[in-house]
């Protein structure tokens, strides 16, 4: 296009990050909005009165501990990938998945506790909200578990190493986000039950 020896201001390369990582952050933002709207609805509805107060199942305390632990192992898996310690990556990703499953089982047991406590999905909205919020969060955990399986398969195919980190990094982002989201939801529910 240009002829030679022309003085041309070379424009700066545009600031850019990895498009897929960026898209992951946007996805995280929209999931965040989904839960923000549910918790806002919770507050608005609670303010109108006729609200059934009950204690949160004790199970939720240890599931919270589990999800925090799983974030630690996930981060360690990412660090291991950065150092090309592939065996450790596989082990740590598997442990994270294990913690994730334990978390889901714990949430399920919390639901059973609720039913024992005579709090059902159908009834006063205070209970319904709890089921919807934990259920929807659980669905997202399931999606993250699927993502972890994909990461694990990539690890076995030697597709994750110090120069190919995008996938495990995005998965780590998503996992930390869901863990943080649960912490927010749990504290929110503790404060507003």
């Amino acid at each position, binding site marked *: *296009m240009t002829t030679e020896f022309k003085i041309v201001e070379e*424009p700066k390369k545009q600031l850019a990050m990895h498009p897929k990582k960026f898209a992951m952050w946007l996805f995280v933002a929209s999931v965040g909005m989904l839960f923000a709207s549910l918790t806002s*609805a919770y507050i608005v509805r609670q303010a109108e009165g006729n609200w059934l107060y009950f204690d949160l199942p004790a199970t939720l305390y240890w599931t919270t501990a589990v999800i925090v632990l799983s974030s630690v192992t996930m981060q360690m898996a990412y660090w291991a990938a950065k150092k090309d310690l592939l065996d450790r990556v596989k082990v740590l990703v598997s442990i994270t998945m294990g913690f994730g499953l334990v978390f889901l089982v714990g949430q399920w047991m919390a639901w059973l506790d609720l039913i024992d406590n005579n709090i059902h999905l*159908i009834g*006063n909205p205070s209970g319904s909200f709890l089921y919807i919020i934990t259920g929807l969060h659980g669905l997202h955990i399931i999606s993250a578990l699927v993502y972890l399986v994909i990461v694990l398969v990539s690890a076995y195919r030697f597709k994750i190493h110090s120069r190919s980190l995008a996938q495990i990094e995005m998965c780590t982002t998503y996992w930390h986000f869901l863990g943080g989201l649960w912490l927010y939801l749990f504290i929110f529910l503790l404060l507003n039950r």
Partner: protein
Amino acid sequence: MATVDLHTQADVHHHDDHDHEHGHGNFWTNYIFSQDHKVIAKQFLITGMFWALIGGTMSVLFRLQLGFPDADLTWLKPLLGEWITPQGKIDTEFYLALVTMHGTIMVFFVLTAGLSGTFSNFLIPLQIGARDMASGFMNMLSYWFFFLSGVIMFISIFLSTGPASGGWTIYPPLSALPQAMSGSGLGMTLWLVAMALFIVSSLLGGINYITTIINMRTNGMSFSRLPLTIWAFFFTAIIGLLSFPVLFAAALLLIFDRSMGTSFYLSDIYINGEALPNQGGSPILFQHLFWFLGHPEVYIVILPSLGITSEIIATNSRKPIFGYKAMVGSILFITILSFVVWAHHMFVTGMNPFLGSIFTLLTLIIAVPSAVKIFNYVTTLWKGNIIFTPAMLFSIGLVSFFLSGGITGIFLGNSAVDIQLHDTYFVVAHFHLVMGAASFFGMLAGVYHWFPKMFGRMMDDRLGKIHFWFSFVGVYLVFFPMHYIGIAGFPRRYYSWTNFETFNSFADLNMLVSVAAILTLAAQFIFLFNFFYSMFRGKAAPANPWKSNALEWTTPRNPGHGNWVGEIPTVYRWPYDYSKPGAKDDYIPQTVPYSETPESNLPHENDLIKLEMEDKNAIVVDDKKH
């Protein structure tokens, strides 16, 4: 501000995208499951046109009932079948279904998917200088989720119990209880499923648009050099990303209320003297959630059109856009405000009057950025060498609608006035002008302007102008009388007013509105003919038919997947250097460096070249903000 960067070596990108350009792949991968943003844009456009036709026809059907309440509509039996009663009238429940579906289709399927889907997809990569979207696959998924959503909505129209009928806002309890009306049965279920899929489609598209704009710009395409279309699409996508999940939450709770027996929105309801078991719900909660999406949604609808208009008005006035920064700032300001005004839709829900006054204040502030935009459009036109292409006419039409519809927004934003005008035809007139007709005109302007790039051919100019004048006059004839009808107290969504003695004097005005609506719809067939005829038989388009500066006109006449043959062009200036004093032509494309235009450079632009002369190895980076 100019900075000097030292580059040892200019990095040259070798893109291999253009080697699969011509005819590779088969029919299915090229035209149906394509990942090319241009093909996806055309898919959105054609689907949007299909829905616009259905939505428009529905409006004419219910206008027939409203304008000619005594007419015998038996002749519509072949089309509507059982929905025409033996007396030759439109079934009352079907009338409500028509109103509901007209709103849903127009707001979501035509003016959200058809508008953002078409032009964000088509223009973002072309105008920022990218080969394609950040993720072509997600982009394709976005279309097919929309398509699936459309199929489900389309099926719901043919149910024997009718499609959703509770209004496009689907307020519970009307929408939550199947026994409330026939449309709240399966029709409502399908509506919710369709909208859930639609939200997925919108999010997939929106994530892609934002990612692409931020990360995929070509060299030199700084934010301050983005065309205003891109700025508008950018903020539209952000609004969608933040507000659609809220609609999803609202719909999710409604689905649970409908199917699982929860009571989020239901309380103290008696049907035929029998109390429903649902206790403790709040229908107002739904309104909060719905309008937290619903209000930003109107900006999702109008902002892309305003962006398209900025580009077209500057190009066809042969003048730089007036107040580029103010234009960007006003879009940003509108975006922020769009999230804090939702309760102005709810002034009559028994809201605390103090809260109402806060929302009144916030709502009225929107008039400021909106007025800035109108002012800048008019000052761009002022003393320009205006070329009245059909796209330009439609853009000016948009400015007119946006102004006349926006002024009534100031009335309605006041809680005190709104309590009188709420749910009357005044509201109908307001939003149809300011966001309905205005956005639609923006969409048509965009089609006329970028048709040469989409299909490599020109649309017929004369037919375009005829289309414009019929549509422009038609829209005003439809919606202007509605202001009077509304102030007179006509409630919206009513099937008939013949029982109200006081409304008899307005019968002829309603008749006029209906006749105008029929004419306006008829005028759209001129466009449809022009569109499809020109696609195959139109004049071959020149490379840059409108003498525009923007990047999309540097592509080949029919760009393949990858858009540019060879390297992506580099950008050296903003896109609005029209009629620059001293320049040879009245436009300087973005790809022309300042060193090639010494005759028209401004002092600070010349300084950039001087800097370069001093040190041959230095590469000057123009980082100035306009």
